[in-house]
């Protein structure tokens, strides 16, 4: 069985702050990490490998620095790492990114493709389903449990707004996963050694035979017009007094905002 796990290197969003003077992002000292959901996607692939035997390939699109993320994935147990890197890929939105990933996945071939449910920087959750469409394979989003895997059949639980569904699919299939699915393993010392020496396979737009006007900025239907800082919340109010006084004050405040709304 061949498994491809799509990963993304992202800035740790929890550490990003806005400079109140200039209204710009301050990312000084903000670390780059593997998108947390993608670690669960990788773990899912590795667990299938442990159980049934499989070759696990990690795939990412990004600049040369993204190699770090791929090496980390290899240290956890991935067998092969592929970096899609080309100036032509710059400025890709979800459509162009998915197109590019799908082109590469077709070249590499896969039975199961795993993605995290979304990346924590963009939060779109679109690249997984769009990639499946370009590959013309089914997908199941928000997978929280894998119940059964066979050569050409998989049964999973997917998280829904009010509970979960049990869904089965033929293989090949693309799954996007949530954190609940598993606990990602730590890299072993041996894994780290392997990762250091591992060859990172690089693929360009030409190598995946991508249409020039479907990748990068040119291939992206959406454009960013501008970005801005979210409206600041009006000043906070610490309530004072005994527990009862605080609760009364809170009820008072809430009923006032209610009245303003009406």
């Amino acid at each position: 069985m061949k498994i491809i796990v799509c990963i993304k290197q992202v800035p740790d969003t929890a550490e990003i702050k806005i400079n109140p003077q200039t209204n710009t992002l301050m990312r000084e000292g903000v670390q780059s990490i593997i998108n947390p959901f993608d670690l669960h996607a990788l773990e899912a692939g590795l667990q299938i490998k442990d159980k049934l035997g499989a070759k696990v390939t990690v795939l990412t699109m990004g600049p040369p620095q993204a190699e770090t993320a791929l090496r980390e994935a290899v240290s956890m147990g991935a067998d092969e790492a592929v970096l899609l890197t080309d100036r032509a890929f710059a400025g890709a939105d979800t459509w162009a990114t998915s197109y590019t990933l799908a082109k590469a996945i077709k070249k590499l071939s896969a039975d199961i493709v795993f993605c995290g449910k979304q990346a924590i920087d963009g939060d779109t959750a679109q690249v997984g389903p769009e990639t499946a469409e370009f590959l013309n394979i089914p997908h199941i989003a928000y997978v929280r449990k894998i119940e059964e895997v066979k050569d050409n059949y998989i049964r999973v639980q997917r998280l829904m707004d009010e509970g979960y569904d049990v869904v089965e699919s033929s293989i090949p299939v693309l799954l996007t996963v949530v954190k609940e699915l598993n606990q990602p393993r730590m890299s072993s010392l041996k894994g780290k050694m392997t990762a250091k020496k591992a060859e990172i396979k690089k693929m360009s737009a030409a190598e995946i035979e991508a249409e020039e006007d479907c990748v990068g900025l040119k291939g992206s239907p959406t454009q960013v017009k501008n970005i801005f800082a979210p409206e600041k919340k009006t000043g906070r109010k610490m309530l004072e007094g005994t527990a009862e006084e605080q609760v009364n004050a809170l009820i008072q405040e809430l009923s006032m905002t209610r009245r303003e709304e009406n």
Partner: protein
Amino acid sequence: MPIAVNKDKCTACETCLISCPFEAIVMREDKAFINEYCNQCKVCLSVCPEGAIVEVEEISQFTVHSSQFTDYKDVLVFAEQRNGKVASVSYELLGIGRKLSNELGTKLLAILLGSDESEARELIKWGADKVYLYNDPIFSQFNDDTYTEAVSKFIKENKPAIVLAGATSVGRSFIPRVAARLRTGLTADCTSLEIDNETKNILQIRPAFGGNIMATIFCPDHRPQMATVRPRVIKRAEYNAARTGEIINCKIDNLISRTKVIDSVKEISEISVNLHEAEVIVAGGRGLGDAKGFKLLEELAEVMGGAVGASRAAVDKGWISYSHQVGQTGKTVSPKIYIACGISGAVQHLVGMQSSDIIIAINKNPEAPIFNVATYGIVGDLYEIIPLLIKKIKEIKGILG
């Protein structure tokens, strides 16, 4: 338009490097260089003291002249149903859809899969002009293949200019496939939509980086313009029981689904986990001390008509299931009222809830970072405060009847 560095002007001051949210600017041969990570967010443009970073004109081969867009007219809402009943997010979409179609002078259409005429009539009363109803049991369960095929086919035939769907589990799963198939842009999780008066494009506003920044996205050269909209952030249109419109019964043959739903399970817990649509969320963290604490939160959520959320710490301790988790690795929510009980306020939690309208923090520790984002802060023992709060709300409810 791509962003580039004018090498003659660049003084290698590196100011732009730290401003870039995507780490897309690196130093190469002593000059700033913009690499593949660039998302065209344009932050660096205003940051460069030398004005060395500029947008470069590039004519996209895909540019379609807007005259070709005249075929694309109406606004289409994907009306989601659950067990045949229209989900509340659909009424909100009709609210914003009505506003956009009025501004554009076009019709508001709704597509409803797997429901019936009485539900279709409701959509008209909430603002739709025409409802395309596919009353076929194949749509009663959600499968991406069947939904994608039906909606894509409808769009190809009816050419709406704008397509809106809820940013729900269903919408966020299959709408991307539709956009991929139609070779058009899709903006996820919008919190507001406006018409650009000059171009008539819609400007799609959405949070990114866990709500740390807002971005305005548009789709100039492709149609339709598609967006998923967060539940609960947009007001419904007025309900008008006398409103009339057209219901068109539609059929689609030869649908094939490669996935099959064999069971649909509502979460056993009695408390709602539908955090995306809840107006009030009562969330608990490590400060609860044990799983029993959530019983108290459930009670408060119940009297306030809300749902129960949790911090990662509480979920990791096994006090409550993952579907309740709010934050970077859980759900991103923006209810009217968010009550954080015994949650210290790690940034990973804050990014998941900081866009809530009103945040009430209850915590023993006056230094807890949760108070920095709180609208109202209460320093005290939640086991003392919450029962009082429940009692007071019940009293008020009693008076109001």
